[in-house]
């Protein structure tokens, strides 16, 4: 019965979402207080029922109810309970339920935390979010029902979860990613409500900012975990592939980054208003587009979901409705929210405008590269894809172009500044970064390396300019008086510098050797000696494996004992490489088993030395941490306490 309860709960949730998307919105235009006041309760009710549906689905997985088709296809009685639970979202249908669960959680959070918002604005925001929820609930119920049964003929055991997904990184990667994706729906809903009301002011931006920052932080963590997972689980040490599915999550992140900076200008200076609204629509549209690309089968990818044209048609229609509708609204209503304040070219506004342009171009570049195969195919020019060389060639210069300006950002003043002041303030960090950058490749690598030099100069410049600004602030004011949003900005920008260093150093200095080794062999890679001690069979809960045992020495001293495995999963027969990694702040040592040779007496072994690879993810964590930190800023809480009527959209303009 439990799966049927879940199915019912899903349907009830759809009903409540339908009410939420219609009743408060109509009320807001007719001035009906009662209808508008229903919005928060509907939002919370909708969340409760989707939570019940999710719990029922999760229970079916954990309790091995193989009469549910989804469980039979994606789980197995031999799997550990934690993995059974995670298998709930390790498939298309279940991940959709998780997606809606998070969307509803965001909606409920807006309903709970935004009671100080003017009722008209709040009811419109919640209605727009309700509409998004209706779309995805319908999608789930009509095209991807997670509770479908196999009766009669229930299988004895399940087909097992894809072994690639049987991993802690994969348990939390999709949830974080979805939190980010759907989080942008809040900024989107605020933007649509502002367009409907025809009013957009500093307080509107202040309301939108924490939600946007939180969504961006989750998305950053989600992307970072995906990259980390690919690194250790796919078994060849790569960490980013420009795969369509990766790009699908990266595009909203890029647009979201532009949005965060544009919102700052809108809040502080009342500028870029219609631009901010457009970016909010973009960021969420790209989240929807990502869903479409991953689940419709229009592009081939290593890790796309099984595709189904009916699903593609549904998401595309929904995409057309939401994005087309909001862009039409934007085209007609943008003049109502446009700002008419000026600023000088040498000012913080221009720097942030530059940031916006770079990130928008980067977004479009990735979008174009991702859709390129589809476009050429649709125009009947043939079937081509652009591949990583294209993305690297266009993306890296854009980021390099960005950094010189990022260093100036925090030091710069709003409205009007002078180039001379910038020069005075920043000449010291610039010279220091140049010296460090030029010396670094010689000191670390022993020879000149152009890319390393450029990367260290840029990252050094950014970090030093940031730290200098922090130092000046601490000299002039007590650290307690510095707002949380400033600390968050510092952490995020320093994180970016750290990621840049990691990306370039690992791509320039990594040493990878693939060798044939037998137990007893010793090999030398990048100054480390690897001894292949032994080879033994390993019995896991739902797999059997060949396990190798290595001792890694440096200068005669033991550094690590590493035990990579080659696993064969029993239910599916799939073979998986479990790499063994000794992680360190300045280098990773990575061993993976390739193929057995000479009838299993020897193995192809990959020995990798990866300097600074952790910096890539450490930087991403710092960026996410910074974005979370800004949520603690007092002015967001003040805004919440001050329940003032004139905030946000008004009836008169509607």
């Amino acid at each position: 019965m439990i799966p049927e309860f879940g199915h019912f709960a899903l349907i009830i949730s759809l009903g409540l979402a339908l009410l939420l998307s219609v009743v408060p919105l109509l009320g807001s235009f007719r001035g009906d207080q009662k209808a508008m006041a229903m919005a928060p309760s509907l939002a919370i009710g909708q969340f409760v029922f989707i939570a019940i549906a999710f719990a029922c689905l999760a229970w079916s997985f954990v309790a091995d109810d193989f009469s549910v088709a989804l469980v039979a296809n994606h789980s197995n009685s031999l799997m550990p309970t934690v993995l059974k639970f995670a298998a709930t979202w390790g498939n298309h249908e279940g991940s959709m339920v998780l997606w809606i669960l998070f969307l509803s959680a965001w909606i409920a959070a807006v309903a709970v935390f935004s009671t100080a918002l003017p009722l008209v604005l709040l009811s419109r925001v919640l209605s727009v979010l309700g509409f998004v929820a209706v779309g995805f609930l319908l999608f789930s119920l009509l095209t991807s029902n997670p509770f479908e049964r196999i009766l009669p003929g229930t299988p004895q055991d399940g087909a097992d979860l894809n072994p690639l997904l049987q991993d802690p990184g994969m348990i939390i990667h999709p949830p974080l990613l979805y939190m980010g994706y759907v989080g942008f729906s809040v900024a989107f809903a605020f933007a649509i409500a502002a367009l409907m009301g025809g009013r957009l002011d500093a307080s509107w931006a202040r309301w939108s900012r924490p939600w946007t920052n939180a969504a961006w932080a989750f998305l950053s963590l989600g992307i970072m975990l995906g990259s980390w997972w690919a690194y250790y689980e796919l078994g060849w040490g790569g960490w980013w592939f420009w795969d369509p599915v990766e790009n699908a999550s990266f595009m909203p992140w890029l647009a979201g980054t532009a949005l965060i900076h544009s919102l700052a200008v809108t809040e502080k200076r009342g500028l870029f208003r219609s631009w901010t609204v457009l970016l909010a629509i973009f960021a969420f549209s790209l989240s929807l587009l990502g869903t479409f690309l991953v689940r419709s089968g229009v592009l081939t990818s290593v890790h796309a979901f099984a595709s189904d044209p009916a699903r593609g048609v549904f998401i595309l229609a929904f995409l057309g409705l939401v994005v087309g509708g909001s862009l039409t609204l934007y085209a007609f209503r943008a003049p109502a929210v446009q700002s008419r304040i000026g600023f000088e070219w040498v000012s913080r506004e221009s720097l942030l405008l530059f940031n916006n342009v770079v990130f928008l171009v980067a977004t479009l570049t990735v979008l174009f590269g991702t859709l390129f195969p589809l476009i050429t195919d649709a125009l009947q020019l043939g079937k081509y894809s652009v591949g990583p060389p294209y993305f690297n060639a266009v993306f890296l210069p854009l980021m390099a172009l960005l950094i010189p300006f990022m260093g100036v950002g925090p030091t710069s003043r709003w409205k009007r500044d002078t180039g001379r002041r910038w020069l005075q303030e920043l000449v010291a960090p610039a010279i220091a970064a140049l010296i460090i950058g030029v010396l670094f490749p010689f000191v670390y690598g022993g020879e000149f390396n152009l890319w390393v030099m450029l990367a260290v100069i840029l990252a050094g410049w950014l970090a030093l300019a940031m730290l200098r600004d922090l130092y000046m602030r601490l000299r002039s004011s007590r650290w307690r008086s510095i707002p949380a949003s400033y600390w968050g900005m510092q952490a995020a920008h320093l994180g970016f510098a750290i990621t840049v260093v990691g990306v370039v150093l690992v791509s320039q200095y990594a040493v990878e050797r693939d060798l044939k080794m037998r137990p007893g062999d010793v090999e030398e890679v990048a100054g480390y000696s690897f001894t292949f001690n032994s080879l033994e069979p390993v019995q896991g809960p739902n797999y059997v494996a060949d396990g190798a045992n290595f001792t890694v020495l440096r200068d005669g001293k033991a550094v690590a004992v590493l035990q990579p495995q080659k696993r064969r999963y029993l239910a599916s027969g799939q073979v998986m490489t479990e790499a063994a990694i000794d992680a360190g702040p300045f280098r990773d040592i990575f061993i993976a088993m390739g193929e057995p040779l000479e009838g299993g007496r020897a193995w192809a072994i990959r020995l990798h030395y990866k300097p600074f690879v952790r910096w890539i993810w450490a930087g991403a964590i710092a960026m996410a941490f910074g974005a979370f930190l800004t949520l603690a800023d007092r002015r967001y809480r003040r805004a919440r306490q001050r329940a003032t009527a004139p905030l946000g959209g008004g009836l008169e303009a509607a």
Partner: protein
Amino acid sequence: MHASEPRHRSGVALKRLKLFLPLGLFLVLGGFLLVGLRLDPQALPSALIDKPLPSFSLPALGQERVVDQGMVTGEVSLFNVWATWCVSCRIEHPFLTELALNGLPIYGINYKDEDAEALRWLDELGDPYRLSIVDAEGSLGLDLGVYGAPETYVVDAAGVIRYRHVGVVNELVWAQTLKPIIDELRREQRAGDRS
């Protein structure tokens, strides 16, 4: 904004028109997505199926010689598009090696790659290919209509392309798709030899 200011007015109209630009762009994009839904990224343009391999004259990887289409035909064989930058190529590599060990002729098309890196890759992971054609510029790929690596073509003894597979070749693809096609082609070939 008075009637006496026509220039100002047209400026405003233009500005308002510009606001429709995002919508217009989205509609174009939506059109492509709609068409894309009806296309199958896995399907070969029908033009190339049952056509001979495009003619080419390209260097062989790690060898001081140039090969053309005539030198790589004569048997039912696989043509595998690969590159060191291609993630999925690593996944299918062991399986291709296994197929080659069982006697299936496989030719590589090393697509938009660096020779040194490609040689290092084959050195380290093993070389399942009879030879690899160096397609550094992607010209052969262009003629074949390569969508992306990895991609595998079944070519019959007469050098005619009979099937194209986009994506990784694994046990499942082999057992369900490629093996039946190759078995059939070999039967045809034997029948042809006898007659």
